[in-house]
């Protein structure tokens, strides 16, 4: 296995709307920031991979123009996943593992503002049986929250405290969209209140990966990827236990997350109730700092929010605030698909 690390991370200030910005406009600053942080130029990067979804832009092939932001001439070795950027990072990690690249640029973006994101996400569902009913993302998350309450795993007050903690933590995150004292609010879809749900916003993120000595040359304290894995579950909610996340547990096992405790966990839990599920699947105790960035409850640019979890966890290692961190990304209704990575600073490995 080659040693691969996240050596740079950048994200936009996430905002409710960015009508004045194209996707390329949104991306350019973060691409420049990560390249600037490493001193690498676009044509020195071994592999580039991005994540996004056409349905947010409301048009086919929306990612083709985003490539303009990279400055891809002379031509580059490049690929794209119609997924959260966390999976683009996974593809880039695999590419580096083959030995065909020593560095990779990974980016992702999502503009939710042009459409009604709750409606748009219904188009992710089984097109014949479920999508025609238009069950929206909040309603599906509420089903999961109610299942957790019925199982005695949580209650509304505990959920509210998750939201409060996340948004209090987000006050130190200059990129967060929603920070500070946010009232629990009214029920949006019972039992979820507005405070249990993520803000809707536009944003982008970028990461640079590098192998071995290259990573050490580019970053004072690289965040080494000690393991990374992702797993998917059945789509139909009727065949899943919504109070559990076996795919997260399996991914964590394969990523080596249970071998030693982690001090930090950046969980992609857009709804407070999903943090309850993930904490259980990952057996995270109170000694693990969960979502110091504020998490997806403070900023949830769809298709970038998972990559941001990896970036935030890595940045904490870069800053010396963490020695061993877990990063998690999710996709699909009610945590259907989950990715887990374990990141370590050099000293933790020694």
């Amino acid at each position, binding site marked *: 296995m080659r040693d691969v690390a996240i050596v740079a991370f950048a994200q936009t200030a996430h905002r409710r709307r960015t009508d004045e910005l194209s996707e390329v406009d949104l991306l350019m600053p973060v691409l420049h920031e990560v390249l600037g942080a490493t001193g690498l130029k676009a044509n020195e990067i071994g592999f580039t991979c991005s994540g996004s979804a*056409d349905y947010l832009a*409301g048009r*086919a092939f929306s990612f083709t123009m985003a490539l303009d932001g990279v400055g891809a001439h002379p*031509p580059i070795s*490049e690929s*794209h996943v119609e997924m959260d950027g966390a*999976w683009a990072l996974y593809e880039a990690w695999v590419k580096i593992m*083959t030995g065909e690249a020593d560095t990779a640029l990974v980016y992702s973006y999502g503009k939710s503002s042009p459409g009604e994101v709750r409606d748009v996400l219904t188009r992710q569902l089984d*097109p014949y049986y479920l999508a025609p009913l238009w069950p929206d993302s909040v309603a599906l998350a509420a089903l999961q929250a109610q299942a957790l309450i019925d199982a005695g795993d949580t209650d509304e007050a505990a959920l509210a405290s998750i939201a409060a903690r996340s948004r209090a933590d987000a006050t130190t995150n200059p990129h967060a969209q929603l920070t500070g004292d946010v009232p629990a609010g009214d029920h949006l879809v019972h039992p979820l209140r507005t405070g249990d749900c993520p803000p809707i916003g536009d944003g982008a993120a970028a990461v640079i990966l590098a192998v071995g000595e290259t990573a050490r040359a580019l970053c004072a304290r690289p965040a080494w990827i000690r393991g990374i894995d992702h797993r*998917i579950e059945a789509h139909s909610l009727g065949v899943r236990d919504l109070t559990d996340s076996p795919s997260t547990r399996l991914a964590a096992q394969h990523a080596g997350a249970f071998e030693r405790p982690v001090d930090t966990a950046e969980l992609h839990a857009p709804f407070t109730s999903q943090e309850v599920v993930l904490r259980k699947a990952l057996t995270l105790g109170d000694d693990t700092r969960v979502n110091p960035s504020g998490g997806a409850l403070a900023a949830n640019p769809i298709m970038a929010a998972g990559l941001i979890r990896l970036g935030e966890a890595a940045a904490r290692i870069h800053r010396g605030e963490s020695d061993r961190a877990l990063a998690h990304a999710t996709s699909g209704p009610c945590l259907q698909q989950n990715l887990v990575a374990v990141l370590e600073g050099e000293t933790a490995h020694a």
Partner: protein
Amino acid sequence: MPKEPVAVVGIGQTKHVAARHDVSIAGLVREAAVRALADAGLTWSDIDAVVIGKAPDFFEGVMMPELYLADALGAVGKPMLRVHTAGSVGGSTALVAANLVAARVHRTVLTLAFEKQSESNAMWGLSLPVPFQQPLLAGAGGFFAPHVRAYMRRTGAPDTVGSLVAYKDRRNALKNPYAHIHDPDITLEKVQASPMLWDPIRYSETCPSSDGACAMILTDREGARRAPHPPAWVHGGAMRSEPTLFAGKDFVSPQAGKDCAADVYRQARITDPRREIDAVEMYVPFSWYEPMWLENLGFAGEGEGWKLTEAGVTELDGDLPVNPSGGVLSTNPIGASGMIRFAEAALQVRGRAGEHQIEGATRAVGHAYGGGAQFFAMWLVGSQPPPG
């Protein structure tokens, strides 16, 4: 540690048609996957991961359909990746899957690409209002026609070359039971008499809209040893991208396509592609792209591609057969079209291409491109394992 050699041990396609009203999207992809598993002599439990590709989600009206397809593809409890690189996606998807094996992350991977264009309307899918970017306005044919015209002007190719390609590919398709367009009465005169759509591209020189899926099982050396049929070995694979629009872009022969081919030849130790390669499955959605890509991929010098076509070199019995399967011109489930090229190249070197088999083919190329001729994916497969 060198990469793990990657073998193609299973290939499955659906019969491609205009509309598969008898199956759901899940039913369609499962049909191809089951055939690939049968070819490989494997079951669902032998698969470690699934890599799936298709072109825009708007073609079926399902956002990220891999989520819904996880059950149908036996992916529950496994890793599942969804690749999307426009028209090149079928090729890119195969390469991402191959990398999982090459990197020794997984041992046996199912890769699959599909399009069920009848679920929606492809022209509508490509014509949605563009909120952030300049529109391309004229659909795929309208976008590519001026570049074909530029090729003709640059090379002096006579305007008969395009119809020769269409006539050849449609005849080849008659030998491929999975091909969409089977016109037993095809004649060169019929192609030439078909309506002009986007001058110089005629109706019979364009690809159809198909429903279809293609699947492959990729595995490591150990997996190849157990395979019931001869595998195809991956000797080289590469992707290259450049922007859609920029000053100085050569739409006739994009640099990204040249670089992609050069990288594949370097990996496969090919110095004279025209002589060393036995069959080419090339992404030719409009007939004129055969001579254009012959040059772009290094099979002919600049301005010489059309001469190979005109001389019959690319015919089924020529010395460099191009698209023995009938190609994209005869079968175009867009998201799957690239993977079909990769799979057909593998069938050739496995000696399992049936009636359109090129006798003694030991090295074949699969090629795909997408976007505004900006994304390229290509692999070279051989009947023998790569050296070393």
